[in-house]
């Protein structure tokens, strides 16, 4: 299948570029003065977090359109985006505490940003569990769409939680109304990493979409 091969190639390119991100972040990006090398976790944590949030927004948008148009392509895309979004959420929830321990002195704290990110991750888990629990395709797509839209509504609260509540989590330093407060070399590494995570998201979603399509062809009532 052509779509599957395309997805595989995009993923291979993404993983190769990820190696380049590692080299650039570790060898060619300056060490931050107060946090030391632990700050370099930021180059993986932030792009993963952006795609965890964007992945759920795309699930929600596809779900809204699905409810109006009943186009199965939208449902397939929502499912693929949810699985990949959950994967990036796993990266966020593992790299975050690993950074938090040396910088905050604790792995986890129940502050607004962390708790809401965990809730977003659990929305992804719930979404995928719901899809696994309903066997009738039309019903599954409709129920999942409602949950996907609910998940999308959570994203602004996750992103703005650092402004709305007093949190331990740092304020946004790139995705904010004013200019990014990062030196050029660090910003370039972050932008490169974000680009690579975008390539990986596209590659994974394309493959996951193709997998659903293959399953539908082999088991027409799946």
């Amino acid at each position, binding site marked *: 299948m052509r779509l*599957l091969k395309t997805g*595989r190639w995009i*993923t291979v390119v993404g*993983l190769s570029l*990820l190696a380049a991100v*590692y080299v650039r972040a*570790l060898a060619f990006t300056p060490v931050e003065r107060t*946090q*030391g*090398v*632990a700050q*370099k*976790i930021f180059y*993986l*944590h932030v792009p*993963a977090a952006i795609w965890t949030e964007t992945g759920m927004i795309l699930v929600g948008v596809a779900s809204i359109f699905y409810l109006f148009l009943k186009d199965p392509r939208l449902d397939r895309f929502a499912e693929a985006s949810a699985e990949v979004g959950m*994967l990036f959420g*796993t*990266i966020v929830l*593992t*790299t975050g505490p*690993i*950074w938090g*321990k*040396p910088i905050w002195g604790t792995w986890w704290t129940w502050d607004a940003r962390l708790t809401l990110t965990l809730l977003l991750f659990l929305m992804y888990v719930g979404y995928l569990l719901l899809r696994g629990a309903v066997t009738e395709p039309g019903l599954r797509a409709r129920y999942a769409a409602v949950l996907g839209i609910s998940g999308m509504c959570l994203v602004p609260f996750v992103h703005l939680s650092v402004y709305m509540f007093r949190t331990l989590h740092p304020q946004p330093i790139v995705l904010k109304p004013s200019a990014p407060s990062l030196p050029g070399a660090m910003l370039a590494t972050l932008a490169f990493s974000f680009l690579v995570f975008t390539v*990986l998201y596209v590659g*994974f979603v394309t*493959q*996951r979409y*193709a*997998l659903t399509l*293959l*399953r539908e062809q*082999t088991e027409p009532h799946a």
Partner: protein
Amino acid sequence: MPENTPYMVTAYIITAAILIGYAVFLYRRTLKP
């Protein structure tokens, strides 16, 4: 701050493992859908 290095190395290894692991998992799943 050399004492931070193990944290950074762990985070980088875990991220690579998750991404490569999922790529392999997807590849194997698409071989036998």
